[in-house]
């Protein structure tokens, strides 16, 4: 049962991250995911201090809003101060992360968050925290929260597919249709932030990036259709979760590290395959 809980939680988180991450990869914003996942740390610490608990919804949203703030700040440095985009990202997220680390070490006795957890989370502890109603155990809390998030993301993709699609591939055309690129940008960023905050405990700040970027990039090497890319991404995410659990068991290492290794292996295979496969000759249209 424990194995199933861990793999299921990992798979659900990987699917959520992958679905959103596909759009980050296509929009050339992969490092924005990296930045957000680091920068939410102070938000999480402050949320802890105020609420004293891990997962109540308003606090999750509060912490996620720090992620959105990060994208606003990056945009400000990039557009208003004319700093290079990569430097804007680097300056902003390291600052917020540093503030987060200072808060963690200052409130060490009040915040139930150690530094290791910040970096690589502990999905192995997921089965220890079960939801109990009456005498019945309803499975791990983390799994419920992650599933709720996945449903939100699926609803978002279902309802917003067209808007996301057009603003991703042809923002100018979107503008001429009256579809707001700014709206879809911030909608996506809000969900990425929320996902990062929710995944944080299970997989940690940096491995969230792996789940956001690696499965979508792998899928991207196999297909050039958005819909099949999304399906493949979910598939690779689920394989990474299951495979990661077993190699972690085998080598006695961390599960989130194992998930990253499997996703890295899948990417390596896809990359080597794309090297071997001859490029199709360009055809006249």
């Amino acid at each position, binding site marked *: 049962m424990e194995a199933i809980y861990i793999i299921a939680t990992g798979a659900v988180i990987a699917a959520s991250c992958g679905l959103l991450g596909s759009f980050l990869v296509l929009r050339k914003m992969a490092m924005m995911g990296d930045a957000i996942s680091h920068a939410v740390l102070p938000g999480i610490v402050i949320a802890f201090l105020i609420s004293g608990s891990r997962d109540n919804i308003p606090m999750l949203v509060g912490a996620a809003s720090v992620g959105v703030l990060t994208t606003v700040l990056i945009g400000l440095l990039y557009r208003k101060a004319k700093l290079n985009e990569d*430097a804007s990202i680097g300056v902003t997220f*390291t600052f917020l992360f540093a503030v987060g680390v200072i808060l963690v070490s200052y409130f060490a006795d009040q915040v139930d968050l150690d530094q290791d957890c910040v970096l690589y989370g502990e999905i192995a502890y997921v089965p220890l925290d079960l939801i109990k109603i009456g005498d019945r155990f309803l499975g791990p809390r983390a799994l419920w929260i992650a599933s709720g998030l996945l449903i939100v993301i699926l609803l978002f993709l279902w309802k917003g597919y067209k808007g996301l699609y057009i603003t991703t591939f042809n923002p100018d055309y979107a503008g001429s249709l009256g579809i707001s690129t700014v709206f879809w940008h911030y909608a996506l960023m809000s969900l990425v932030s929320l996902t990062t905050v929710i995944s944080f405990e299970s997989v940690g700040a940096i*491995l969230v990036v792996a789940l*956001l970027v690696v499965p979508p990039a792998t899928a991207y090497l196999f297909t050039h259709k958005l819909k099949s890319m999304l399906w493949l991404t979910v598939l690779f995410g689920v394989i990474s979760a299951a495979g990661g659990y077993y190699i972690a068991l085998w080598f006695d290492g961390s599960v989130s590290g194992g998930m990253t290794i499997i996703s890295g292996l899948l990417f390596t295979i896809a990359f080597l395959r794309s090297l071997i496969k001859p490029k199709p000759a360009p055809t006249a249209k």
Partner: protein
Amino acid sequence: MIWNSFIEFLSFSDPNVRMVTFGTIFLGISSAVVGSFAFLRKRALVGDAIAHSILPGVAIAFIFSGSKNPYLLLLGALISGWISIYLIELITDRSKIKADTSIAIVLSVFFGVGIFLLTIIQHSGAGNQSGLDQFLFGQAASMRGEDVLAYVIVGALLLIVTVLFFKSFKLLSFNPDFAAASGLPVRFLRFVLNTLTVLAIAVGIQSVGVVLMAALLITPSAVARSWTNRLSYMIVLAALVGAISGFFGSFVSFAAPAMPTGPWIVVILSVLAMISLVFAPGTGMVARWYRQRKNRRKVLRENLIKAFYHIGERAEEFSELVSLSDLQATRDFTSRELSNGLRQLEKRYLIIPDGNKWKLSEEGLKEGKRVVRLHRIWEMYLTERMRLKEDHIHPNAETIEHIITPDIEEQLLEELGYPEMDPHESEIPYDKSKPRN
């Protein structure tokens, strides 16, 4: 109280404090110097990726040697840092994956492998692995004499190489294509630069940790870049900024021992960066905002005076009074623009108020003629020389009329032979008081 502890700090009576302070200062300098080139090459985040990618190399070196030999760990770090750079370039060059994604892939997968190995080492209880934890968050406070010595050596090496290769690095950073075309060994130079970067990161990471290492590379350059345009000044300034924040970071953790040094260095750096990006003359946000506002006001004034001129031109009488609604009928001004613009024109004595109406002053008429003339000769130029159709030229002239300087105007007029009429058959007004040359 703070002052007293600052004095105590400055006395450096505690040898440990002395060590940590000098170590962080040297670290700040060397990472700022290599960071400057990465910053200019728009590869700031590659530094972040290298910092994360060092972890598996360190873990593997530890597993193989079974000890915490610092030189072996450094060697492992160098090798895996190097592989990561190579892989980022390989993925970007050989597949349809873009640079940002390949950086994120290498960064997160290498780090994941590192974490996996680190947890294996921890679980196997392989002796004292506390040294490896330092690679994650850094432990500036536990800096030892040999670490400081390493910083000094690496720092000196970096500075020597930078001075020796300064011209080549400069060219490589600003114009790699030209560098290659002019026969510079670009691949070799890139190799040297990358090696220096990996070296600085591998050495520094034990003090500030994986994530914050990126800040030491990027942020000093962001500060320095907003104050100067010259590469040599920029590097010196960045090094200075790195040193200052290293110094004050050490002071904070001296005054409050519970405070981690690395994050405080980064916070101090970031505050310096925010101040520079907002207030630096020329490039700062305030300076930009002021320039834009000045420009907007000028454009508004010129458009308004042009409206006065057009009204006068239609009435064939420039001394008549003009009302707000006349102006609005001529051009789509908002009421705020109108009140703002009219106030500005009045203050410059370009228009003369009379109740709720205004008329052009002599100077105003001259100014109106100037703007309209620029508009019309530019339209002339577009049709005559650029062969554009008459119905396509107006929007372009609307923008350019605010930009043309007297020198360009003179050249255009000579080029076109002082035309009388514009392409729409309107008269081009000349300033009669100024002699033609």
